[in-house]
């Protein structure tokens, strides 16, 4: 026993070094698994305030581009208005309430919450975006995040006033997607190399895919509202060893200058989850 103590005293520096290494590595590998780490919520409030200050400058420099994006989004939404469509046969009139609003709001499935981006990274293999809206403003874990042009990612950590979003430019991000034209469903991944391109996998080779095809969020996702743009096919890689395509997509969102995002809450998610769980337990 005395020898052990002597040994530790003699090599105390080395032992101390090892302890710190183990702490650091534990934090690193635990974070990858559960996307949360010691004091991350508290630290995010502090680092986030620095980010917010930096962002006020960056935001100003990109105002013009943000404005153009908003104008384009407005144009797209206005073109969907019912009054823009007229049937040539005027003797028939179709009347349809497009939005059912009642006092209980029981038909609403998706709720959009706007948020400002205050931190953004595209340079590592595990990219996160920080938004200035947190649990006090209604953001929860696993909510979907969309920009004005397309999908951004999912919320992974929430503090009181800020939230950290795992963008689709993260090696562990997986999103269910489908081809707009034919409807086949696959998975979106990122290979960690170029932040402009992502990969769509598991599309069977029986489908005719062309360059420029649109890829949207699928109807089976429990987070993302269906029909949101993810990307556009840039290259169809033909891998003879597989029955599935591996499609290279250009992202719909420009991750280099994303300024404002919408956090989307699926209000019927709990019901769907509990139903699916109950079904699994019966078997």
């Amino acid at each position, binding site marked *: 026993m005395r020898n052990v103590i002597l040994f530790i005293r003699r090599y*105390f*520096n080395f032992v*101390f*070094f090892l302890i*710190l*290494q183990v*702490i*650091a*590595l*534990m*934090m*690193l*590998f635990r*974070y*990858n698994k559960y996307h949360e*780490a*010691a*004091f*991350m919520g508290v*630290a*995010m409030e*502090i*680092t986030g305030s*620095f980010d917010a200050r*930096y962002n006020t400058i960056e935001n100003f420099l990109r105002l013009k581009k943000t404005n153009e994006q908003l104008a384009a989004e407005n144009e797209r939404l206005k073109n969907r208005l019912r009054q823009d469509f007229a049937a040539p046969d005027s003797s028939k009139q179709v009347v349809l309430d497009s939005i059912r609003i009642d006092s209980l709001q029981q038909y609403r499935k998706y709720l959009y919450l706007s948020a400002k981006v205050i931190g953004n*990274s*595209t*340079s*590592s*293999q*595990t990219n*996160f975006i920080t938004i200035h809206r947190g649990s006090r403003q209604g953001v929860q874990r696993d909510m979907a995040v969309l920009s004005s042009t397309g999908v951004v990612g999912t919320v992974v950590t929430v503090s009181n006033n800020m939230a*950290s979003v795992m963008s689709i430019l993260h*090696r562990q991000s997986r999103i269910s997607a489908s081809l707009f034209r034919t409807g086949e469903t696959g998975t979106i991944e990122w290979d*960690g*190399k*170029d*932040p402009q391109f992502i990969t769509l996998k598991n599309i069977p080779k029986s489908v005719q895919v062309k360059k420029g095809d649109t890829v949207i969020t699928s109807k089976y996702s429990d987070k993302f509202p269906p029909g949101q743009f993810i990307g556009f096919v840039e290259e169809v890689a033909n891998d003879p060893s597989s029955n599935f395509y591996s499609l290279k997509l250009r992202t719909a969102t420009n991750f*280099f200058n994303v300024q404002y995002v919408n956090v989307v809450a699926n209000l019927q998610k709990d019901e769907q989850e509990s139903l699916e769980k109950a079904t699994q337990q019966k078997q």
Partner: protein
Amino acid sequence: MSSLVKNIIRFFLFILVQVFVLDKIPPLHRLITPYLYFIFILWLPFNMPRLSLTLVGFLYGLTLDYFLYTPGLHAAACTLVAYARPFIINILIARESTEFNYIEPSITAMGFTPYAVYILILTFLHNSYIVFLEWLRFPNFWYFLGKVLATTGVSFLLAMITEMLFYRKQRFRTNTA
């Protein structure tokens, strides 16, 4: 200005430069993220005890980690650099007395070549450890090798340029003072 105040200012300055300047640069050739922040550890005083040196390295890396959302990654690398630093200095400086003539490692204190070697070894150590931890999670050997070499080269250049641009005036310490 006392050494403590100077180092506290450097601590925050290097973190802010790394987070808001160097990390905002899109990766050069998709590989290289320039690292400069760890030069703070290399500039700590010679006579700092080993134990506190390792601890400061850990806390410094952790601070950066919280800014970049990678808890543990830079902390692990900084701890390694801080722990290895005294060994490298002992090898590189042949000295007769037990006292150092200058407070911090610099070109004037060590001479150009030993200082360059000192920076190069620790830069290599830091970058290979960081890329190695990344590699453990996403294995790809050639990517690993290329990234280590390229990142080390760029970081080494940056560190030497910083050293030459921001000349640190240092007093020669004598026994009488």
